[in-house]
């Protein structure tokens, strides 16, 4: 991932003042301090994130119920992957649900959040109030969002059924529960996206906008010629955030029914294979690796954008 970004960021970060001092060697003590400052945090990340990531890949080629020691592992090659694709019933539904999740997040809350940001960025009475209303759900945990929406979705006590006289178990019925969960997610996701775009729109040059107005540009022209270009780098960041969020989605379906019966998601399947009674570590790892591979592509994109910005 890192090979795509060969130029160190600092060289151009502050072109005038930052001509960093020529490489004077630090005194021995300072050098030891610098090494320690990097080493301890790096150790944390390497031991707790990167080593497990590699071990996930290794374990995915074995069969292990987790009870015995490591030498109990039988190496089975790519059998776990073959099994996942061929004979693991929840896998394809999970993939499908993750994809629906992704498309929905884009077409629903992401576009809405973008729209809200563009409107609220204007001089508008009560803009602060509206912003607060939209991003208040962002501070709540997704698990909590699941509970709060249960007050709408419950079959016997939920508001929706009481208002419409229906008898749908919105969280339980496998033909609708994915959509119920998605609406709850959207409630939280919209404000987050709005916030990101609002921050980005602060970068729109006001004088450009005024000049456009003086020249008689229409609102539409102003938006597409002046505002939208500013939003382009943010679009990419948002794209990556949305993809990664949809891939990671877990909390909501776990609190509803542990990711079963219409709510299968890859993240939940991994957990089911590890913390359940019948632990299948190799199998769970193979699922995890599939997740990791998909996310790696988007992490790489993200890092590229970030580092390109950095160099500017």
């Amino acid at each position, binding site marked *: 991932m890192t090979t795509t970004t060969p130029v*160190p960021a600092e060289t151009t970060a502050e072109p005038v003042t930052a001509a960093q001092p020529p490489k004077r060697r630090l005194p021995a003590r300072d050098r030891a301090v610098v090494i320690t400052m990097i080493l301890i945090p790096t150790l944390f990340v390497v031991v707790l994130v990167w080593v497990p990531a590699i071990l996930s890949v290794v374990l995915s080629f074995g069969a292990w119920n987790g009870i015995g020691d490591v030498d109990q592992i039988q190496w089975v090659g790519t059998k776990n992957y073959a099994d996942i694709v061929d004979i693991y019933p929840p896998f394809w539904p999970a993939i499908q649900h993750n994809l629906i999740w992704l498309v929905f997040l884009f077409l629903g809350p992401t576009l809405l959040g973008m729209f809200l940001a563009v409107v609220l960025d204007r001089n508008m009475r009560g803009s602060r109030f509206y912003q607060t209303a939209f991003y208040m759900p962002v501070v709540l945990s997704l698990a909590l969002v699941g*509970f709060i929406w249960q007050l709408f979705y419950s079959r016997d006590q939920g508001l929706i059924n009481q208002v419409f006289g229906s008898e749908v178990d919105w969280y339980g019925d496998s033909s609708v529960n994915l959509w119920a969960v998605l609406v709850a997610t959207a409630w939280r996701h919209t404000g987050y996206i709005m*916030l990101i775009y609002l921050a980005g729109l602060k970068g729109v040059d006001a004088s450009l906008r005024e000049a456009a107005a003086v020249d008689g540009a229409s609102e539409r022209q102003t938006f597409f010629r002046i505002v939208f270009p500013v939003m382009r780098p943010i679009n990419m960041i948002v794209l990556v955030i949305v993809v990664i969020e949809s891939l990671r989605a877990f909390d909501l379906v776990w609190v509803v029914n542990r990711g079963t019966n219409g709510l299968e998601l890859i993240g939940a399947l991994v957990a089911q294979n590890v913390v359940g009674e019948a632990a299948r570590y190799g199998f769970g790892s193979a699922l995890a690796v599939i997740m990791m591979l998909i996310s790696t592509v988007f992490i790489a994109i993200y890092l590229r954008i970030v*580092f390109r910005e950095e160099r500017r």
Partner: protein
Amino acid sequence: MSTTLEAAPGRRRTQKPPERAEGGALNAPRGTIATVVMAVLALLWLFPLFWAVLNSFRSYAYTQANGYLSIGGWTLDNYRRVWENADLGKYFVNSLIITVPAVVLTLFLSSLVAFVLARFSYRFNLTLLAVFLAANLLPPQALLVPVYRMFREIPLPLFMSETGTLLGSYWGLIAINVAFQMGFCTFVLSNYMKTLPHEIYEQAQIDGASVWRQYWQLTMPLVRPALAALATLQVTWIYNEFFWATVLLGGQGDKFPITSALNNLRGQFFVDYNLLSAGSVLVALPVLIVFFVLQKQFVAGLTLGSTKG
């Protein structure tokens, strides 16, 4: 975004020309439409929380008899029952035990890396940043098996963990939270530190200040605004963290932080929805207070990371 580079952080806020209040006014008819649409949407957005608060103050007997669409049956009893029966106090303390050290440690460790990244230009800087940032974005589920198993193998003395292993202890949970959150904080802090004028370090060097002093006495006080913003954000995130707490403290329901505990308690104690509402409101309260009191910090923290500066 590039404008922040030339100014010290202290002057940031004044940089924006004061006459530009957001993106310019809308003309009258558009303005009216926009206001109506926004007002309707905002009310829609506030409604779920409002509904939870409303029903948390109503007695179950009343809502059962008259349906939830009725008005009346006001009571504080749900809160009393939730607090006493479900022992919520204990879980709030657990959340505190996890959140405070995790946030402090995250900020401290990432400020160390951020300082080195911002202060020196080593060839490995970009790689290092990538190592941290990518770790932040990996799906936690992808690491579950090895982390779970590793934690089960690592023994801890009993006074540190009743289970005798890292699994089921706060130490493990705090460590994993720190490891996951460091990427974001390192990134934000190093960007912020890069906006500090380089001359202050040259001066410090002439004065013979050691690297540690440059970090602790010179840089850290100057990045306080960024630290405050990040702290606010991290407190909410770690308080809200659900996945690791649920799986790593799995067998130890007593040790759950409040967010995971609520899920556990649902079947046992929250038999009706008025109680569940009261429980939800109580769990939401700390983050909502943080949000309203430190709104500016919270927003600043989020936006610092998503777009630079």
